């Protein structure tokens, strides 16, 4: 077998979901399912599953946060479930009638939504200790709504161009309480975006499902790869660690090395930062592929969350490929409103306009997103703790914003000029992107390290400490 024919065969296997014989086989054997799963039925099933997820969130998640303020039993969970669904329905009604709302809400629906969520946080903080049920209720609502903030935001966006889903509130439930999984970041965005990629025919559904099956398989492979990588690099105790007889490269995890500040041998320190990048990419890719895979099997052939970020040749390209739906969240809720809104004031300063928009999204938006994720600390009223926890992420976000802006400017300056395609130049560009993200992750990695310890670790990599 020649290298050319081997590559062709490998490509055929990798792209099995696009091979017509495979699609025909899928259609032949699953024709009853493909014909039964009409768009209406698929959406109805996902909406029913969403109600179950909402039910589980109101019971399990509130119990899991284990804060004394939200320990209220079945009555609290039921009232929070009903109130959350009621709030979501109310937000949907507003999105339908946004054009007839008062000017502040009409012009700034997203800001109004976040002000309302913060008002509920305030009510939880101000509620008297003598009336625990009330305090617990507001704390639980603040917790629930802060996790839903960006999903509700996409719902409000659906009113912008009169594209409110014909299925009404039922369709919005699909992504408000996604049965396909996710975090605070809405994978697949809202129903408007999902609808653009929705399979209309049985053949479309077959293609979507096959590409979903491929992603689920990839997710499994990446999960196994991640387990092997962690065992081989860090000695993490798992199946592969036992297979390797306990041998590993003994590289320290970045979170531990950063918490230690100085003292990690330079070579191990550098190995630690690069390994963390690989680990983060593998982790995000396996998780994202699973979620998007389920969405595709359900008939929504949406974009992947992660697409070969380790091959990116520029910082902004990496950011596009690494965590697509988080990048989209920042672009939708921060970058675009700032960039468009500053069109009059900064029309003659396009670079400044771009810089402010990038800073607003990648730095401010990024920080705000992570601040809101600290809802467990926030509902307890420890705003000072939450702010203190933002010190390192703030620095990380600032560096990220600067990196993205410089990368965008370099891309613009290059215009139609092509980058050198020789392997060495390409390799150096990729290495530069790896190094940039590996280094800024020092201020982003979990592990409870202080800002000064992280900075000391960074300086020690260059022999300054």
């Amino acid at each position, binding site marked *: 077998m020649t290298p050319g024919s081997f590559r062709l065969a490998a490509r055929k296997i990798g792209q099995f979901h696009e091979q017509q014989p495979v699609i025909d086989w899928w259609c032949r054997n699953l024709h009853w399912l493909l014909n039964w799963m009409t768009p209406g039925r698929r959406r109805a099933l996902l909406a029913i599953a969403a109600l179950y997820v909402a039910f589980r969130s109101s019971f399990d998640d509130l119990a899991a946060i284990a804060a004394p303020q939200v320990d209220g039993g079945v009555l609290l969970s039921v009232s929070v479930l009903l109130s959350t669904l009621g709030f979501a329905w109310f937000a949907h009604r507003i999105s339908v009638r946004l054009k007839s709302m008062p000017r502040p809400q009409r012009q700034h629906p997203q800001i109004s939504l976040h002000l309302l969520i913060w008002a509920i946080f305030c009510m939880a903080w101000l509620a008297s200790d003598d009336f625990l049920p009330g305090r617990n209720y507001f704390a639980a609502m603040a917790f629930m709504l802060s996790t839903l903030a960006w999903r509700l935001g996409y719902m409000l*966006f659906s009113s912008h161009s009169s594209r409110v889903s014909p299925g009404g509130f039922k369709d919005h439930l699909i992504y408000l309480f996604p049965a396909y999984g996710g975090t605070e970041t809405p994978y697949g965005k809202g129903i408007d*975006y999902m609808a*653009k990629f929705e399979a209309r025919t049985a053949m479309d559904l077959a293609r979507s499902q096959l590409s979903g099956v491929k992603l689920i398989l990839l997710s499994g492979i990446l999960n196994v790869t991640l387990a092997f990588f962690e065992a081989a690099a860090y000695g993490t105790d798992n199946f592969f660690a036992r297979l390797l007889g306990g041998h590993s490269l003994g590289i320290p995890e970045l979170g531990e090395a950063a918490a230690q500040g100085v003292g990690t041998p330079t070579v191990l320190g550098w190995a630690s930062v690069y390994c963390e990048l690989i680990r983060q990419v593998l982790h995000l890719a396996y998780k994202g592929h699973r979620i998007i895979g389920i969405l595709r099997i359900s008939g929504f052939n949406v974009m992947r969350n992660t697409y070969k970020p380790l091959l990116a040749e520029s910082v902004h390209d990496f950011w596009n490929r690494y965590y697509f739906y988080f990048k989209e969240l920042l672009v939708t809720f921060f970058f675009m409103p700032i960039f468009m809104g*500053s069109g009059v004031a900064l029309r003659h300063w396009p670079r400044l306009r771009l810089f402010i928009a990038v800073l607003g999204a990648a730095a401010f938006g990024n920080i705000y997103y992570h601040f809101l994720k600290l809802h467990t600390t926030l509902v307890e009223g420890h705003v000072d703790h939450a702010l203190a926890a933002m010190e390192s992420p703030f620095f990380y976000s600032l560096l990220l914003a600067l990196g993205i802006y410089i990368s965008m400017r370099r891309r613009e300056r290059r215009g139609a000029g092509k980058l050198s395609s020789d392997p060495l130049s390409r390799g150096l560009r990729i290495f530069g992107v790896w190094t940039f993200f590996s280094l800024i992750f020092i201020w982003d990695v979990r592990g409870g390290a202080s800002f000064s310890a992280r900075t000391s670790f960074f300086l020690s990599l260059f022999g300054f400490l």
Partner: protein
Amino acid sequence: MNSNEKEKVREFLTGLMGARGDHGPIEDSQSIFVSGRLDSLAITNLVLFLETEFGVSFADTAFDIDLIDSIAAIEEFVTRVRV
């Protein structure tokens, strides 16, 4: 928006795509951004181009990518905001 202006938009988009190695044709109704052919940096390029070339402003518009996701959508948007 007359046909000359529409061709200007097409030419501009062809240039943006060409710079990214995409030399395929652009049909009027074909998605440009949602389909992933161009990224968010290209959105800013296109917005600046539309503001400069046609004098339109996005400041008072609730921005949605669908407004400029195809040549047909751009034509509709520019025509609407100019009135």
